[in-house]
């Protein structure tokens, strides 16, 4: 991302944040109307967690088809960001839950499903840590991501609808639940966070690529340090 885009993103997020506190009215109908502003940050993070998971599955599939190392890097970077946003969604959600439901953790289906999602991501990285060879690591983690995908679809879309929940469902897209002002602010913040997501994605990817280049150079050139250390 070029400098202009970065600055625009920063300004946008700052603007939305300010608006969330100054422009957005306290949400009536909540136990603690003032603190309800946090949905504006909470929900975009939660959605980005799913987006990251989708991106991860998408690149995993393409890696298996094409076997290009770059695709594997993209998949793993997406998973890293997914984990990050899952933590953010959980932290904001827990703060909110403390105010609204009186307890930071209630084993609400949404809470359960995000924990499971984090477990999948964690398992994904444990798996990556368990395989030395880069090609094998890429294949196995891609396969795992694709195996976990149907399970995650189930946990995210089917389970919260089977089990009763404290969480509101279907408020984002159907008109009934969310106040339009809230919806605008929320989606504006989402757009800002999406830009951050893309920026971080490309940044991490560049780091990964550089690391791969360093590794390759180390392999092809004789190690210079060895001769120097000789006692």
């Amino acid at each position, binding site marked *: 991302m070029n400098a202009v885009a970065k600055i625009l993103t920063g300004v946008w997020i700052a603007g939305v944040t300010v608006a969330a506190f100054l422009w957005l009215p306290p949400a009536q109908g909540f136990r603690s109307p003032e603190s309800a502003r946090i949905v504006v940050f909470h929900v975009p993070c939660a959605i980005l967690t799913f987006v990251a998971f989708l991106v991860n599955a998408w690149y995993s599939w393409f890696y298996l088809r094409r076997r290009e190392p770059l695709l594997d890097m993209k998949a793993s970077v997406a998973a890293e960001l997914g984990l990050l946003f899952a933590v953010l969604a959980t932290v904001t959600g827990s703060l909110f839950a403390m105010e609204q439901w009186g307890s930071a953790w209630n084993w609400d289906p949404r809470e359960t499903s995000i924990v499971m999602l984090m477990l999948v991501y964690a398992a994904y990285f444990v798996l990556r840590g368990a395989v030395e060879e880069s090609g094998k690591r890429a294949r196995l983690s891609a396969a795992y991501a694709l195996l976990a995908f149907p*399970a995650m679809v189930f946990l995210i879309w089917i389970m919260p609808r089977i089990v009763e929940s404290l969480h509101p469902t279907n408020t984002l897209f159907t008109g009934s639940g969310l106040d339009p002002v809230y919806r605008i602010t929320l989606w504006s913040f989402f757009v800002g966070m999406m830009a951050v997501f893309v920026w971080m994605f490309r940044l991490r990817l560049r780091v990964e690529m550089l690391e791969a280049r360093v590794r390759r150079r180390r392999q092809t050139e004789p190690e210079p340090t060895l001769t120097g250390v000789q006692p």
Partner: protein
Amino acid sequence: MSRSSSWAREALAVFGKDCLLELRTRVALGAVLLFAVTSVVASGFALAPPSGVAGEVKASLLWVIVFFAAIAGLSRVFVVEEETRTADALRLAVSPTGVFVGKLAFNIALMWALCVVTVPLYLLLLEVPVRHWSLFVTVVILGSTALACATTAVGAIVAKATMRGALFGVLAFPVALPPLLVAIHATKAAWLSEGGWRMATGDLQVLVGFMLVIVPASLLVFEHIWSE
């Protein structure tokens, strides 16, 4: 020789060989069973009737035990091949589809054997009153089969990594969670007096649907896991 009969024949050969290995080493099934039996007895000890644990908790516990016992056994079919370095020989002789189907069949057989012993013991020791027997048996069969379907491919992944035993639990848990949750839910329906089949049909559909999704998905990625 047609292609379809070819993978079926291969799968049969792999299944037969695995059964023979099992018979020879005699320990896989015995140990999985003893593991499950130990946990069931321990639970019976901890949650004996006076402690008054709800039927819901008991349903969860039954499936958690089955799941942990499965972890002890299900990844073995692939791990043993890699550890003993026979995987390459198998790769040379059998198509990935044949290997997967053969191993899946073995794992399903293992799960059934596990349930045949564990479940009656559990019902007995924890004094669970089952109201809807036919439903309960169906749930156990479908649930254990779904667990095997969900985790067989994960076993293949684990076999390629280090620190297998423990890794399998970690990787299998998220994938096995949907059938686990649904089976728990359906088991409650079979134990409680009301509801019964009516309450559980949705669950059974989800279980079957899950298998219909996860087996093709596994087949699709298995080739990439199995071949270097």
